[in-house]
């Protein structure tokens, strides 16, 4: 049994200390490689520290909220060969739920650097030369690298003198060079590389980053939904000319403190009314138990793009809210998601989902069902199109709804009826306000 010490990693940007904002583990926990141990916040970003090894936590040092110096020991893990029990595994999974929370364009970069600095040396060198591996070279010492690494560096316009070598005798490996290239691409103020000809602009670097946190969660869920659920997609065009006129009027006459209305609260309202006639669509399908849970409530998930990735906050009991109320609530949730203040409760429990990319909505999309739900409604962009009405082409504001359904539970007929009802409500917007 060996003890692996994890130190506060260098998260880059010249930061010398960082704050531990969350422990994802406690002493005695069993962790697997890549399980998240802690979340660390610098002034730029919150990043997770993954475990480089599998083992049992034997010590944690560093208090929550306290600044801890880079390089300080923060976790000790005793490595053993035991496999985790199921319970442990589930706990580990739950812990992963927490994600990168703040802003953060730099997160991906920091995470890469983090993974690099936390990664253990790939093999335990027993040689007495070990001490000098990976250390910076003495001034004037020629960097050690294979011919292909030297050529690659030349092509990338990089002087190997500045690249740290992690190989034996400080040899610069392909990985070292790639890491340097990935890092220097983001470093500010670095002198532009010498004059290049066109060929040298060909890029060969491959950036590798760990899929962690929210991204991993999204990846798992999408994989699961797409592999389990036989999707059928249904696209219908909706004439929203009248709705848009109404919306413009409502916005023009809104009172102080009232929200500016987008088209989404109207669509949410239409969904609520259509669900009242088609309750099958507000449901969960538990395919393990072969049970469908059909909900009287309409808890509508609303896909929101945040800097960290896709989130789906939930508008609870949409059936009990007015259009204005729906507008307020969806704005509040979207802001919370983007600001990272959203709670887990607000992110769970939806019974059907609405997905919209606004002006980027395209003309058709194929939304992936938010499992275990059975339906998702996708909103495409509004565009003016010629429509043939009463013997003449007239300009109308048209919008497509692209929706997907779990065909195990929902037949094409049900799907069509559900969407046609929404269409009819949106095309005759007064009906949205008649119960």
């Amino acid at each position, binding site marked *: 049994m060996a003890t692996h010490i994890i130190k506060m990693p260098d998260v880059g940007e010249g930061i010398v200390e960082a704050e531990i904002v969350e422990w994802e583990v406690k002493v005695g926990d069993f962790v697997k490689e890549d399980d998240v141990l802690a979340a660390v916040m610098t002034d730029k970003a919150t990043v997770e520290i993954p475990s480089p090894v599998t083992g049992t936590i034997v010590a944690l040092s560093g208090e929550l909220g306290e600044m801890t110096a880079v390089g300080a020991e923060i976790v000790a893990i005793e490595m053993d060969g035991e496999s985790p029990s199921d319970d442990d595994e589930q706990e580990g999974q739950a812990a992963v739920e927490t994600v990168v929370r703040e802003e953060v364009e730099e997160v991906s970069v920091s995470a890469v650097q983090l993974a690099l600095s936390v990664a253990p040396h790939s093999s335990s060198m027993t040689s007495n030369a070990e001490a000098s*591996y990976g250390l910076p070279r003495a001034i004037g010492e020629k960097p*050690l690298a294979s*011919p292909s690494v030297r050529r690659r560096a*030349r092509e990338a316009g990089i002087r190997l003198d500045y690249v740290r070598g992690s*190989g*034996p*005798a400080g*040899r610069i490996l392909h990985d070292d060079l790639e890491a340097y290239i990935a890092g220097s691409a983001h470093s500010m103020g670095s002198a532009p590389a010498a004059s290049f000809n066109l*060929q*040298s602009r060909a890029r060969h670097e491959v950036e590798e980053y760990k899929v962690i946190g929210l991204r991993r969660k999204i990846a798992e869920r999408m994989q699961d939904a797409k592999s389990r659920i036989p999707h059928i997609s249904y696209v219908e065009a909706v004439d929203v000319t009248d709705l848009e006129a109404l919306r413009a009027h409502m916005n023009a006459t809104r009172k102080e403190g009232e929200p500016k209305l987008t088209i989404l609260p109207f669509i949410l309202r239409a969904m609520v009314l259509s669900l009242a006639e088609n309750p099958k669509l507000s449901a969960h399908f538990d395919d393990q138990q072969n049970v469908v849970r059909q909900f009287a409530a309409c808890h509508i998930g609303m896909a929101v793009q945040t800097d960290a990735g896709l989130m789906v906050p939930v508008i609870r009991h949409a059936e009990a809210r007015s259009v204005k109320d729906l507008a307020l609530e969806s704005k509040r949730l979207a802001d919370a998601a983007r600001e990272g203040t959203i709670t887990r409760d607000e992110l769970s429990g939806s019974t059907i989902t609405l997905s919209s990319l606004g002006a980027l909505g395209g003309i058709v999309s194929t939304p992936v069902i938010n499992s275990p739900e059975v339906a998702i409604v996708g909103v495409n962009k509004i565009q003016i199109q010629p429509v043939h009405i009463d013997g003449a082409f007239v300009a109308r504001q048209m919008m497509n709804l692209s929706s997907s359904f779990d065909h195990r539970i929902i037949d094409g007929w049900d799907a069509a009826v559900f969407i046609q009802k929404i269409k009819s409500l949106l095309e005759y917007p007064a009906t949205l306000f008649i119960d």
Partner: protein
Amino acid sequence: MNVTRGGLSCDILILGAGPGGYAAAIRAGQLGLNVVLVEGDKPGGTCLNVGCIPSKAMIHVADEFYKATGFATSGKSVLGISHSMPQLDLKQSVSWKDGIVKKLNMGVAGLVKKAGVHLLAGWGKMLDGKTCEVQTEHGTKLIHAEHVILAPGSVAASLPSLPFGGSVLSSSDALALEEVPDTLVVVGAGYIGLELGSAFAKMGSDVCIVEFADQILPQYDKDIAKVVADSLSDLGVEMVLQAKAQGLSEDGKALLIETIDGEVIQRAADKILVTVGRKPRMDGWGASNLYLEMNGPYIQIDDQCRTSMSDVFAIGDVTGDPMLAQRAIAQGEMVAEIIAGKARRFDVVCIPAVCFTDPEVVVTGLLPHQAKEQGFESVVATFPFKANGRAMTMESEAGFVRIVARADTHQVLGIQAVGKGVADLSSSFALALEMGAVLEDIAATIHAHPTQSEAFQEAALAALGHALHI
């Protein structure tokens, strides 16, 4: 200068079709450049026509003949082989050698053609940095080039006291001899003199080697030189060290030699082979029409083989030591890529050097004393072929493999070997150095058994303090 009329235009003009020139031409052709390769002689340069290749052919003749002689000398062969005294028809040997050279001449011409290169036969003369005048069979041609690669090569250096001609031979002359001289004095114990000297000794000449330094192969260390010297002694070759060739005796049948004590001795010499090095060829191709900065006798170049004139490159022997075909080839290939717009520098760790003496010598990277001079604290380990099974089975127990490595990081700095057939170990030595191998890398690489290459692994193990077979 108004000489542009009727000219031929190209992207690259290469002056000289030796290994450097033709390698540059082929690579440039592959890269789609329009190349004119100018050569007054047969393609292949010194290496192919009068150097590396023909000398190796004659060394092979000498080895085979010497082996057969050994079997014929009664009671000498420990292998139990005997037969009657062999005869050597040197004329036939030379014509066989010439056949190989011719085949390779044609091979080079074919490769160059396949790469789409225009091989122009004729002596070229640079008029300026962009223009070359070529005297061809069909008259004078002007070539205008965007880029010029100078690859004129080198010529054998002579001694003022012993100008070439008559019984005084250059290495090229020696390779064309049709009779084995009874007595041969070799002036200069560098690799060329030793290779040819031992070849003639094996073919039956009485050979004496005169060297100014205090050892043969003066550019290498004494440990290497000793193994070769012992073998030369066994061949009956006399080595007169720390001595100077003064000139021919009055009757022209002997060489006068001044020893370190100031004494003048003489050695009978039907032929005198002068191998005191080579000098860059700076005459006959218009060097004086260019404004080239020189580095001593050589054209000065940077690490991209650029000369002081823009778009004029120089490669090969004309740029200095080591004057080896493999260096010229590497430079030529690189320059072609630079002209094609690729980012390249000549940044090799080592240029392996091989002497086809008997036994052969391979030198890669730093010799022990060079490592010390460069400030490295180093470990040096040697594994002798007398402890190598394969060497024993080939009656070639002389020699060793030696590794020089940094004491702190174990990075291998140099690898040398002396022994029969070790020339072919040069590739793994050079590869190890270029890849930045540490001793542990070599020690952990399985080397096939039974081969002489095991001595390489054992030397690495010895440097780590745990050789298995010694």
